[in-house]
């Protein structure tokens, strides 16, 4: 059984009458790179803030490394995070800022500071004060802080904000390497869906504080893959007919839709096959969408 790093059950947060999070259930296992997808105000940052203790939950519960509430205490030290914008002391250099937090965390091996700076390519900034950093440099320092002290779980809110394309790629490679080599678990939110898609292996799609879907990368691929979608009266019978005719590359979605991924199957042939088999077809269309389209369709379904 996989070790659970973070689990929320019915996690809710309200600000007056505004419901920022509405009974969110999610489970992150050790080794996951878990992507949070959602529009502005969807509740991505709120989840991260509650988990890290920056905001109080209004309802529900969560466990971190299987500990909750008061038990959390020292487990927090196993987290590295960057939430909202990076925040550092403007009059200190990159190294001094990291040193401040290293002392706070009781890190005795100061070489970790240099390693973290090196990992985000900030080891050559010398005595430049934080206030003089560019947006990208600030972001990278935030990530260096999160990386310091070998965390088991990294929580990163929009980590690629302000980074150039090369920086984004380097960061993605770094996350994937740390995930593969050091088994660091990641919770990452991003507006840039294509980027998140390339990094994460599990996803949670949120909108207005509610979970729309939790799915793996394979499930997401499947949902977005080009196919023939069939809405039929008797899906079970339709599936049997497909297999009897040598079509095995298909999936039944939510028990009411049949998706055929075999590109050699023509819509006319499929329609005839089902009709002759006595299955009434109510709709047949070509499906297969981009990540953005899939996200939009989920939001539309909810609103519809």
């Amino acid at each position: 059984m996989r070790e659970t790093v973070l689990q929320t059950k019915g996690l809710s947060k309200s600000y007056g009458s505004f419901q920022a999070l509405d009974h969110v259930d999610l489970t992150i296992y050790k080794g996951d790179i878990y992507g949070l997808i959602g529009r502005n105000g969807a509740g991505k940052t709120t989840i991260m803030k509650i988990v890290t203790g920056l905001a109080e939950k209004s309802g529900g519960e969560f466990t971190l490394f299987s500990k909750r509430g008061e038990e959390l205490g020292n487990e927090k030290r196993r987290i590295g995070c960057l939430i909202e914008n990076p925040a550092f002391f403007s009059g200190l250099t990159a190294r001094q800022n990291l040193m401040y937090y290293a002392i706070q965390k009781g890190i005795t091996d100061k070489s970790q500071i240099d390693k973290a700076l090196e990992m985000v390519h900030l080891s050559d900034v010398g005595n430049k004060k934080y206030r003089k950093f560019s947006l990208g440099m600030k972001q990278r320092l935030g990530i260096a802080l999160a990386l310091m002290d070998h965390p088991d779980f990294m929580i990163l809110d929009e980590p690629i904000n302000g980074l150039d394309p090369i920086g984004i790629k380097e960061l993605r490679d770094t996350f994937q390497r740390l995930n593969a080599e050091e088994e660091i678990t990641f919770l990452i939110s991003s507006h840039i869906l294509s980027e998140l898609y390339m990094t994460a292996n599990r996803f949670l799609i949120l909108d207005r504080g509610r979970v729309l879907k939790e799915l793996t990368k394979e499930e997401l691929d499947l949902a977005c893959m080009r196919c023939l979608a069939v809405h039929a009266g008797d899906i079970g019978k339709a599936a049997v007919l497909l297999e009897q005719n040598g079509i095995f590359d298909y999936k039944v979605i939510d028990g009411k839709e049949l998706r055929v991924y075999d590109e050699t199957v023509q819509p006319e042939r499929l329609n005839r096959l089902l009709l002759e088999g006595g299955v009434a077809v109510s709709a047949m269309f070509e499906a297969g969408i981009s990540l953005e389209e899939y996200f939009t369709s989920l939001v539309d379904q909810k609103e519809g």
Partner: protein
Amino acid sequence: MLNMIKADFYRIVRSKAIYLAVALMLMMLAVDIYTVEAGNLGVQLSVDTGDNAERNREPMQTDDGAQISSLSMKDYRNVKLKMPGYALDQDVLACNLNLYYLFIFVAAVAVSADFSGSCVKNTLSFAIDRRKYFLSKFLFVMLCCVALLFVNTYVMYFGNLLCNGSHFASDLGNVTRITLLQLPPMLALAGILTGFAFLFRRMAVFNAVAIPFIMVAQVLFHFLSFVLKLPEETMYYELQVMIARLSMEPSRPYLLKSYVVCGGLILLFGAAGWLSFRKTEIR
């Protein structure tokens, strides 16, 4: 908690504000020593602040009839040096409420800077919990304020001894004893400021409240005691008066009562700061 305090020391010695505070303190002491006169930044009180209060140390005229107010600092110093000697260091320590304005720098750098720059979220999200954060900041501000108090005392003592001679100085044991006696009200000042820093969090708001607070509180205290016709003894527990009286020869009952008042102030402002901070969302 110890790590938090160590980290804050690491940061505060790299902050310009703390050096500015020390520079201001040295400047104030230099003026006191040079003019042989204790300066007071608080509200002028009409309360008996101790056994030396009746002694009017400021001459109205010089020997040749010139008005003292028209003299330059140098001439004023010469006039004062010709007067009978007294313990200038003790008088300066009686005006230690001045340090409140320097303590503002400490609380601002230690606490408000964390909130204004949002750096507090780094600490709270992966280093320690809110209770430990609050306590370590409280302790840190108090430690810094105590350090400033002792630096103030000994710089004053040795500076005065060097510039004005033993004629205007008491002894090292006496200034140390006074400083120790004044610790509770000074810790109360540090506690009030830390409480404010957690209550108001943003630097600008904290400064806007903390800077006028002590004077407003003094005026309000006087006003209320006048309106409610409180006995004069009540005024002895106002912080400025307390600091002045503790620099003299306080009676044991007064000492105990004033320390209880100081403890109460620390608890009151500490509780206000904690209640405001413990559940607030960190931005």
